[in-house]
């Protein structure tokens, strides 16, 4: 189970396992980086306030304090529950979330301006809602770290997760439009004023399910079928799960009219399948399915055709469907390389500037330099997740970490690609940056799981210091067992690490 590369992938990692000096936990680095993130976010806020000529309001002070409290609590929770977790993941998230809050606040100011100009009542402060959602996200984050003390226990609930995930995914599609439909996509469950997008949570539950399922059935998928063009094709009957997943994606697309989620689910599944089987043929077959699905969807559904036409030439229907993307491009172009400066642009001209289009808002005011920096932060987050996947010793952990990291990667690609006219626009939010409660809360849970896996990957094989070494001559003969990772199981390794 333990892949031999896992130690080689992290130089120095073997040190701790050999019972040498105590392995650095990385918590100090994490704290310093969190302070750094807080400084950047505070600086961004100061710029916004200066450029908008605002004075510090009590509400904003509370939001700022709440953000710092969230960072502190998250850090303490990691110290308590996952002391060896990767030190770069949480600061990346903190920076993204903080920049998101600043930009949402900045758009709040623009909305207030507009309302004042048009003599309308002052709109709700979105940043205040977002910080509340951040707090909820933190609660879930701590709960996951606390309750899931070993990620492998999740594998046991694989099918439960799959079932719940499916129900959550299907629910908005089955509910009447009055409850579930917002702007043409049936993604919501809205009761009263509040609403959640269950799909965001379904995404994580389904990744757990896929990972658990694939680990269980790995041999089945690896069974060779015929060879074709140098690839081993899977047997036809093994295609069934792929077909089911494909059907699921198409179902999401048809019933909920959500191009983005559909693409996301299918992409994640393909990548997990590839990681589990190491066979490129799955990817190619999957991509073939995708192309066929895309062609059929284009032929059958008006909303897909509209998306594609707007993508090809947003300016041909500038007044209507192309308006949003055209405004986003105007914003990005006006920002140029250096941006207008935080608080000095007009990102509010783009509809949904604070949620789906927060990328263009950031691009207008921070420019290409700012966007490239944020992309690098995302890249750090994703690669640290994949790094944990490489380093962790169990297959389920590997698949889960890969799935979760790739989910973030694919989601930012689909969203940013859509906003910048690289690919057709889909209605998804940017993890941690965009305004939106469900996305934020679900992604905090996602990060908690990544931290849990990275903790397992980096922790010494035992929580306690190694027992005083018994001189080898005095030691009784014992059966050397393969070590089991984690705090819950496994015999104490001997001074040699108990490695087979």
């Amino acid at each position, binding site marked *: 189970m333990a*892949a031999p*590369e*896992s130690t080689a*992938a992290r130089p120095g990692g073997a040190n701790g396992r050999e019972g040498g000096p105590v392995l650095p936990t990385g918590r100090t680095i994490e704290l310093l980086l969190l302070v750094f993130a807080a400084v950047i976010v505070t600086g961004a806020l100061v710029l916004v306030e200066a450029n908008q*000529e605002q004075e510090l309001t009590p509400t904003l002070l509370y939001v700022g304090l709440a953000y710092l409290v969230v960072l502190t609590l998250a850090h303490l929770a990691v110290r308590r529950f996952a002391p060896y977790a990767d030190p770069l993941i949480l600061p990346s998230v903190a920076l993204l979330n903080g920049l998101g809050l600043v930009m949402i606040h900045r758009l709040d100011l623009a909305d207030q*301006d507009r309302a*004042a*100009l*048009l*003599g309308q009542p002052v709109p709700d402060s979105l940043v205040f809602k977002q910080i509340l959602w951040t707090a909820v996200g933190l609660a879930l984050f701590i709960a996951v770290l606390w309750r899931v003390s070993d990620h492998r226990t999740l594998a046991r609930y694989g099918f439960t997760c799959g079932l719940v995930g499916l129900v959550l995914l299907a629910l908005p599609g089955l509910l009447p439009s009055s409850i579930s439909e917002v702007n043409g996509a049936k993604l919501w469950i809205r009761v009263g004023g509040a609403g959640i997008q269950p799909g965001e949570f379904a995404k994580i539950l389904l990744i757990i399910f896929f990972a658990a399922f694939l680990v269980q059935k790995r041999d089945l998928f690896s069974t060779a079928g015929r060879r074709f063009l140098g690839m081993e094709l899977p047997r036809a009957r093994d295609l069934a799960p792929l077909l089911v997943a494909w059907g699921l994606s198409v179902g999401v697309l048809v019933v909920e009219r959500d191009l983005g989620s559909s693409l996301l689910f299918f992409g994640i599944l393909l*990548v997990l399948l*590839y*990681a*589990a089987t*190491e066979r490129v043929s799955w990817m190619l077959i999957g991509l073939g399915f995708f192309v066929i699905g895309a062609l059929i969807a284009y032929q059958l559904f008006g909303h897909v055709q509209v998306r594609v036409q707007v993508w090809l030439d947003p300016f041909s229907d*500038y007044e209507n469907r192309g308006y949003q993307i*055209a405004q986003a*491009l*105007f*914003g*990005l*172009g*006006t*920002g*140029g*390389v250096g941006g*207008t400066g935080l608080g*000095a*642009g*007009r990102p509010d*001209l783009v509809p949904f500037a604070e949620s789906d289009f927060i990328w263009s808002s950031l*691009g*207008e005011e921070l*420019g*290409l330099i700012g*966007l*490239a920096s944020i*992309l690098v932060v*995302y*890249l750090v987050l*994703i*690669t640290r997740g*994949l790094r944990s*996947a*490489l380093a962790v010793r169990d*297959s389920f952990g*590997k*698949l889960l970490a*890969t799935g979760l*990291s*790739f989910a973030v*990667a*694919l989601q*930012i*690609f689909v969203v*940013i*690609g859509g906003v*910048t*006219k*690289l690919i057709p626009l889909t209605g998804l939010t940017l993890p941690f940056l965009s305004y939106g409660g469900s996305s934020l809360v679900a992604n905090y849970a996602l990060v908690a799981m990544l931290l849990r896996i990275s903790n397992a990957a980096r922790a010494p094989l035992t929580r306690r210091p190694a027992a005083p070494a018994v001189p080898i001559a005095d030691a009784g003969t014992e059966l050397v067992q393969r070590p089991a990772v984690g705090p819950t199981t496994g015999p104490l390794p001997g001074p040699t690490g108990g490695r087979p």
Partner: protein
Amino acid sequence: MNTPIRRIAIAVMALILLLLGNLTYVQVVKAGDYRDDPRNQRVLLAEYARKRGQISADGQVLAQSVETDDRLKYQRQYTDGPAYSPLTGYYSVIYSSSGIERYADPVLNGSDDRLFARRLSDLITGRDPSGGNVVLTVKPSVQERAYEEMSKKGYEGAVVALQPKTGEILAMVSTPSFDPNPLASHSSGTQQQAWKADNNADPATLPNRAIDQTFPPGSTFKLVDTAAALQNGYTPDSQLTAAPNITLTGTNTTLENYAGTQCGTGQTASLREALARSCNTAFAQLGGELGADKIRAQADAFGIGRSDLSIPMPVTASGVGDLPDTAAVQQSAIGQRDVRLTPLQNAMIVASIANGGQTMAPHLIKEVQGPNLDVIDTTEPDRLGRSMPAGVASTLTDLMLGSEARTSGGGKITGVQIASKTGTAEHGTDPKNTPPHAWYVAFAPANDPQVAVAVLVENGGDRALEATGGSVAAPIGRAVIAEALRGGQ
């Protein structure tokens, strides 16, 4: 399982690189196109947050931005709004801008190239960039007098006063006018209310009649005929018909003199007498004899038909219309049919005569100043072209003195010789029963012209059907001339 994970990591990096590449394309390669797209409001909106320059004339501030405590930072204020609004225009958050506010916008908002060095130093010193100032050629006393004369009787119309030697616009009035202050309000309710009121106003208040609209010039167009005639073998003593009415060549349509009178006492009348008495039949004959080409050539020489004129506001093109046959030329020669002039164009004609046949480009901006009121650019007088030789202009001036001598109406200035021409232009579908437009074009002093004016009072002013250029428009023109000369030009 680690090999595929590494490949996935590489694929993720490739996706991010793809995003970066596309972002570079959007924000660097295509950035200029997107930024300058006319549908992109961002650049425009950024201007509202900057301190805009002021518009002034002869030391008097006409429009300025004052700091406010609301979020738009600066509020535009206009002193004596309605009198100057045809010049300044308005500057509205919702409804864009007009007039100098619009056409000198690069200077006022600070983006003009002439302010580049200044902007650079703002950038280095971290000073808030602010706009340059525009100084108008207008004489406030003349402008206000002209506005008062027009508005006290509730006249619709326009007055333009030019300095004939330079083309400087000394006054440009359009009545009834609007107040730009409520349109610049930071309360959208006030803006919307004012905009609605201005747009529904009857007669209209928003257009600048002096440059935005054209009117039949009536008998003032006879100056064009005369200028053409004097350059084509006619002399002031050339004899023309004195008949009270004539039938247009090739038609049954008759054309008659004002009130159906004989032109003077004889069977024929000299060109001098015909102009002084403004005899329609004589000029119809003259026009017919000169022919379409010569009339049109002379009109073009005065600038009629130019569509590229800007002061810097664009001036609607004047025109003589189609002249397919002699009858059309005969009708057009008395400034009827399809001849249409802006009041500014009519002022340019007399200014050209006053300046010895040299037409100067009319302009409204005297100087461009930096934010510190230091002059960074001065408008030099620009020649548009020659309408006639100096000798002809001198003869024509002499004939116009004769016209002024026969023109009634009050306001004559003792000791000042005015050269003028009046016009009473019919218009509408029922010309005989529609109050005519009253015109008065003049310059003074005749021997050393300092001011040229065109006055238009639409629809008869307060005299209705009885109105003539002399009775309605001339007193205003003379008052404006008197005011301009009083300034000690």
